[in-house]
Each structure stands twice: as C-alpha cells, then as structure tokens.
C-alpha cells in the first residue's frame, strides 16, 4: 500500500537497477562499526587461517603483502541502507590464500575474526571462486583505520557487515556458527538482493 503523499527522490534507471531493495546511493563512504576503531600497528599485525581450532597458516604484514595481489571493483551495500558504486579494492583473493596454504576450503562455513573482537559468519561458497578477498587498499591507497585498515575482508555481493573490518583471521567451521552481528539478529547469509537483513528475512 502506498504511503500517503510519498513520491520519493527516485534514482535514474541506470542507478536504480544497481540498487538492491531499500537501498539508496551515496557518494560518501559512511562508517559502520559497533565500537571505536582499534589501533592496529603493522609490526604486530598477523593474519591466520584456521581449520576449526587448528591453525593452518599465518602471515605477518610483510609476508602477506608478498602474496599475489588482485583488484576488485564492485558496488557495496550496507545494511544501514547506503550503497556505494564502483568501489575499487586490492588485496589477496581468498582463493590465493587457500592455494598458498596448500588446501582446498575444508568446510562449508567460515567465521571471519577481527582485531576488535567482533566476528561474522560467511558461507565458504561466498568467499571462493573469485568472489572475495582480504583487501589492503582502497582507491589505490592503504585502507584507512576507520574503514577497516590495515586489512578488511571484502565480500562485496553480501551486505557490508560481512566484509569484516580489521580482519585477522578466517576460521573454517563444520557448522554455521553465528558471528557477533548474527547472534544479534542479523541474517546468516545477508544477500542484499533478497533483502536478507535480519534473521527470517
């Protein structure tokens, strides 16, 4: 049913067709996080791949930056309703991390862990086959701390809370274990095109 008197500032068709339901376009880059920005020194930075509780491989900042670098330019969609088009990232594809560790994705589910103590769960399928990376650069520059630097997960086809900021590890899990936001009512997968914002959507 239409809302009385609402016509909206609708976007042009070329913009509208790139916007998932309920989203609006912004040219800014708003920040979303549940707490302050953690202060992570590059000298202390580490990224660890785990299969369950078992560490498979771990990199310091220097070693991580020796890994094959890739670029992804994608539209991103935040659950707080903004979308930003053609964001340009570079970093290491999850496929390349797995190859480096000499393993195939060991399970269907993954938990991404971050320096601020938060976590988010992502189906492993959404991370592999060219879909996701651990990004270290945005627009050709190191990612700013407020936007998740030194490194953040980038899973651009899912709501942006899945692209965990300040990421320090991926953990493959047997079960789909809810992460921080998912325990608080957010959706286990978070596909913006199906408007999967909250559990049950």
């Amino acid at each position, binding site marked *: *049913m*239409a*809302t*009385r*008197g*609402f*016509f*909206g*500032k*609708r976007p042009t068709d070329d913009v509208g067709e790139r916007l998932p*339901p*309920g*989203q*609006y376009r*912004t040219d*800014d880059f*708003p*920040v*979303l*996080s*549940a*707490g*302050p*920005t*953690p*202060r992570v020194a590059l000298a202390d930075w580490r990224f660890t791949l785990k299969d369950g509780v078992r560490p498979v491989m771990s990199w310091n900042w220097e070693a991580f930056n020796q890994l094959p670098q890739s670029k992804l330019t994608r539209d991103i969609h935040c659950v*707080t*309703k*903004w979308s930003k088009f053609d964001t340009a990232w570079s970093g290491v594809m999850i496929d390349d991390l797995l190859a480096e560790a000499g393993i195939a994705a060991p399970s269907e589910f993954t938990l991404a862990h971050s320096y*601020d*103590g938060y976590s988010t769960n992502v189906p492993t399928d959404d991370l592999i086959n060219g879909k996701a990376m651990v990004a270290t650069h945005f627009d050709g520059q190191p990612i700013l701390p*407020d936007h998740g630097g030194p490194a953040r997960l980038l899973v651009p086809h899912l709501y942006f809370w899945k692209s965990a900021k300040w990421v320090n590890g991926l953990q493959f899990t047997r079960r789909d274990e809810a992460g*921080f*936001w998912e*325990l*608080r*009512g957010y959706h286990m997968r978070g596909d913006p095109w199906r408007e999967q*914002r*909250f*559990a*049950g*959507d």
Partner: protein
Amino acid sequence: MDRIPDIAPQPERLAWQMATVIAITTETPRVKLFRLKPADWHGFTAGQHVDIRLTAPDGYQAERSYSIGSAPDGSGEIELAIDLIDAGEVSPFFHEVVEVGDAIELRGPIGGHFIWRAEDGGPLLLMAGGSGLVPLMSMLRYRAAAAPEIPAALIYSARRHEDLIWRDELFRRATEDPNFTLLATLSREATPVAGIRQGRIDRALVDAALQSLPTTPKTTYICGSNPFVGAASSFALDAGLPFASIKAERYGG
C-alpha cells in the same frame, strides 16, 4: 577480547507492520517528534531502533532507520525524533508531509548491541552528537524510572542552544536527579549560555564526565554522525576506558 553479554532476545522474524501517527511536535527548529502506535508491538529495549519503509504510488520504496527516543514504558507507543536533512529523501517527507492519523510502515525493534537494560548495570557514560541523543534519551528516561540509583553522565553536543533536543527535560532531570550529570556543549553558538559549554567535544569534557561518576563507567554509549563518533570514541580511549566497554552507533553524515 571479551564482550559484554548484551544479547537481547531476537524475534524469529521482523515483520513489516503499519503504525498510526498519534502526535507530532515541533521540538527544535530542525527536529520534529513523531509518536507512533504500531499495530502489533511487544515492547523494546532502550537503545533500539525501527526501520521505516515509505512506498510511492508506483511501488518505489525508501527505507531508513530511526532510533526510539521514548522509554520502554509498556504504552505500546514509541516516539521518534527526526532531524531535517535538507537535501534528504525521508526526513523532509516526515517534516513536510506526515500528519496525525497517517499510517506509516515500519518494522522493529531492531538492534541487539547498542542497548541498555537495568540489569546491565552502570555507571553509564553517554555521549551524543545532535540527533544521536535519541537512543541515549530512551536509556536515560528508562533508567530514571527503573534504576535511578545507577549513576549516569551525558555529554551532549549540539550546534546551537535552540538545537538541543528535549532541552527542558534534560536540564530538569540534571537538577532533580543526584545520580545524573549533564554536560552540554554547543559547537556553533555565538552567545554564551549559562551552564553550557562552548565548542566541540574534547578530552576535558570527557574527563569532567568521568569525574562526575563514582567509578569507571561499565559501559560507554556513543551516538551521532561519523565524525562525532570517531572523535568521541578516541577521547574515550585516550581517557583510558577499556575498548570493549565502548559501544557506538553511527547515523551517517
């Protein structure tokens, strides 16, 4: 890092529903209050928000989030405070078009992190920039009714004196409530106002708020625009507050 056990019970599904506009009040030159009665409402926790969905005749829809400013009081009604963003899509609609009796679609309550219940305890340090006051006001009102013995301090930054939302209520509470301290500051007011500071939030203001509390705050809630939350959370960290005790909600802008 251990997190505060703050998980509110989550509904199986958050369904869209209609809410009736019961009352509209002009609170400041830029903020209007909207009292809504959702058709099927089972209460909420202070700090939570609702999602609003507006539908045009051709089916085009716009969605935005708005915090609940009233206390969870069992009334089945909620109050939103909407700040007018000049070039915006949804806030000007609320300011210019919405009338008492209109039906507005919403769903909620939403948010299982930026919330406070009496059993979570205190002291509480609250820091609000502009309309970021809204969810913190819900916490303050609820605390006054449910747990007035829990010490609380509010740092509230607005542009001008006239922009302070719920100004009279806040100053009245600060006068009457021995366990509540209000530290208001105005970032763009030319004429000084007694009892209110001038300038942006700074470390000194955070220190003053901390001194007003008997012990280190158990939880610090920060809400407002991105720049406000960024600045306020750095001052809180610099003042030595533990990282995991600081919760933030960012409105954009």
